[in-house]
């Protein structure tokens, strides 16, 4: 019997190695895997690359990982200069790759879809394109982009069943389904456990095969 539920946070975090690339879902606090990020802090993996829309807001779980010195590199579309992430970067203690938000989502999708590179007009005419390959296609100047693959994705879901089928609530969907596809191991925290078949097959947001472990974290 397939059963992706794990009994403890230690089981959920087992095997996450130093040096891993970790995709972290959510937009602001909405859809963010708060419990899993606490679990990651407790688990102790370091030298991490964190891929997230906006990195290290004051008081956030990412800021806490930064305080613990676990993050070597962040890939994101937004960092406040005055935040801990911004200060660490300016001190040379944190690597930062700033990526347009749509390109960030598309690069994660590319990893999940087996696309090895793509050309997009986004950022092609900007300083973010300096020193990188561009090409005029269909009359548009385009920039090449490569997949952002996660060793691990940490996501938040509303419902989960034992096959790992997931649903999301309202705008808590955001990057979670995309990251679920883009990582070798996807770990979800779900607010509700439902029986197999309770989610109608037309309403599954993330099919079970994209999900490797689920931990029940009630509201």
């Amino acid at each position, binding site marked *: 019997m397939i059963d992706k539920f794990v009994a403890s946070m230690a089981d959920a975090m087992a095997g996450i190695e130093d040096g891993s690339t970790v995709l972290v879902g959510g*937009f*602001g606090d*909405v*859809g963010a895997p708060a419990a899993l990020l606490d679990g990651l802090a407790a688990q102790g993996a370091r030298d991490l690359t964190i891929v997230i*829309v906006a990195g290290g807001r004051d008081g956030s779980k990412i800021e806490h990982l930064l305080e613990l010195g676990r993050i070597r590199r962040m890939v994101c*579309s*937004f*960092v*406040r*200069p005055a935040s801990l992430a*911004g200060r660490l*970067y*300016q001190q040379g203690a944190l690597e*930062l790759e*700033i*990526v*347009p*938000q*749509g*390109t960030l*989502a*598309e690069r*994660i*999708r590319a990893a999940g879809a087996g696309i090895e590179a793509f050309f*997009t*007009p*986004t*950022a*092609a*005419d*900007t*300083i*973010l394109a300096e020193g990188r390959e561009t090409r005029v296609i269909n009359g*548009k*100047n385009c920039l090449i982009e490569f997949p952002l693959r996660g060793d691990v994705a940490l996501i938040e879901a509303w419902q989960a069943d034992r096959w790992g089928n997931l649903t*999301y*609530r*309202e*705008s*808590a*969907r*955001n*990057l*979670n*389904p*995309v990251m679920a596809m883009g990582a070798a191991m996807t770990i979800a925290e779900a607010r509700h456990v439902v029986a197999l078949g309770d989610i109608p097959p037309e309403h599954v*947001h993330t099919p079970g095969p994209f999900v490797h472990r689920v931990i029940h974290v009630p509201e």
Partner: protein
Amino acid sequence: MADSEFQPLDRLGIAARIARDIPEGWFVNLGIGIPTTVSDCVPHDREVIFHAENGVIGIGPAPAPDAVNPYLINAGVQHVTLRTGGAYVHHADSFAIARGGHLDLCVLGAFEVSETGDIANWARAPDEPVKQVGGAMDLAIGAKRLWVAMEHVTKEGASRIVRACSYPLTAKSVVQRVYTNLAVLDVAPCGFVVRDMIPGLTFEALQARSEAALHREAQQ
């Protein structure tokens, strides 16, 4: 300059001016700042579908304080409501909307707009220590129409209507129209064309506040 003879629009006035030009049925993304308030200026019975980058289609007005849904925010991380008929998509699909030409309109704020339609709205200098790009570059290249909402001049009195942007570009040759607190300007092949001015403002007074050359509609 006879500043006393005209009253520049306030930020909500700019938003209201933009809202007048958005017809029913358009699919519209509003950037942070002045643009965000445009939706409040569209009458509810004119059905305009507002999109947020975080995957919300059909954003409605702000919720009552006692009716906040913590799972429902816009791209500015503000609590919002969903109109009847709205839908949720994930981030990659949401940016497919933005980048794939599905938005009838995107309205962004800006530091500067050039006479060739370049927009600079994300970084004050190429060597800014920490960059914050967000989704502006994706929206700027992808929407069917890109309009900009901004003050005509900076607090220091420098024009934001320029021959060439001095700040780092967000995107090149994409802006079609600019709404400022003084005027509505189209970006045409010849450069900026004045479509509308606030009451009491003369073309000459507007030109004096614009670094780029302005054209009258008839000149075009």
